[in-house]
């Protein structure tokens, strides 16, 4: 089902869920959350805590957005990898991938599993890696702020 939902997002070529980072009003990024496993719950926690604010402009990249961030939070299995890639390919304009959690970073606890990607960076370029299993919601925000620093100096 997750795979199907991902495909839908990719087909429609619009971010299903867009967020802005609270506490950094100057920050202009839209986060596209690809929640594949338990790490996605931490993204939910970040929203509940008000750290990530759902974008009021609705679907589509709102005006003034510098980059779209694909947040890969969870285990990327071989079955889901094409969905992640299509979501990545569907992003128009500037884009960055954030790897969130041990599974997306390196395969994590599934480092020895034949059907799990050993890090999403094997499939697409990752700008920021957030460690944790899962990382705290605060770590997500810190990672997104780091992304802004990285891209500002690049």
């Amino acid at each position: 089902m997750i795979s199907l939902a991902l495909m839908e997002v990719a087909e429609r070529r619009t971010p299903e869920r867009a967020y802005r980072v609270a506490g950094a009003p100057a920050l202009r990024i839209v986060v596209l959350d690809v929640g594949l496993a338990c790490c996605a719950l931490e993204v939910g926690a970040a929203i509940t805590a008000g750290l990530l604010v759902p974008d009021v402009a609705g679907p589509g990249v709102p005006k003034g957005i510098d980059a779209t961030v694909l947040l890969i939070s969870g285990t990327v299995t071989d079955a889901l990898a094409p969905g992640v890639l299509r979501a990545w390919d569907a992003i128009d304009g500037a884009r960055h991938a954030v790897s969130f959690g041990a599974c997306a970073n390196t395969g994590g606890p599934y480092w020895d599993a034949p059907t799990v990607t050993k890090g999403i960076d094997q499939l697409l370029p990752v700008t920021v890696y957030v460690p944790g299993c899962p990382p705290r919601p605060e770590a997500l925000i810190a990672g997104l702020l780091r992304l802004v620093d990285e891209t500002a100096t690049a």
Partner: protein
Amino acid sequence: MIPDEAHGVIGLQPSACTSCMICVRECPTWCIELESHTEEVSEPGARRPKTINVLDAFRIDFGLCMYCGICVDLCPFDALAWSPGFDHAASSAGGLVHGINELVNWWPATNPSPAD
């Protein structure tokens, strides 16, 4: 908002580490790397020199780490401890690997050194 007992980051006290390898072997994801060598130490009055392990390198790959704390729990010499902190994202997967120099800095200030 973040509880004190949260699994933030793992600190190391190298002087307490005996290179026993228990943490390395018990880690579910094998994210710890340890290098050591043995040295002979002669003590006055001893019948023969004793052999001790000397820690050369200790690396934790936080990209693999599950933050389960098994290493912290199992260390017989309390050389590993949790520290608060969450801002350790990196711009490369290799940037998540931290050696002795960083791990020492993450030794919790509230913890007295077990070697003292």
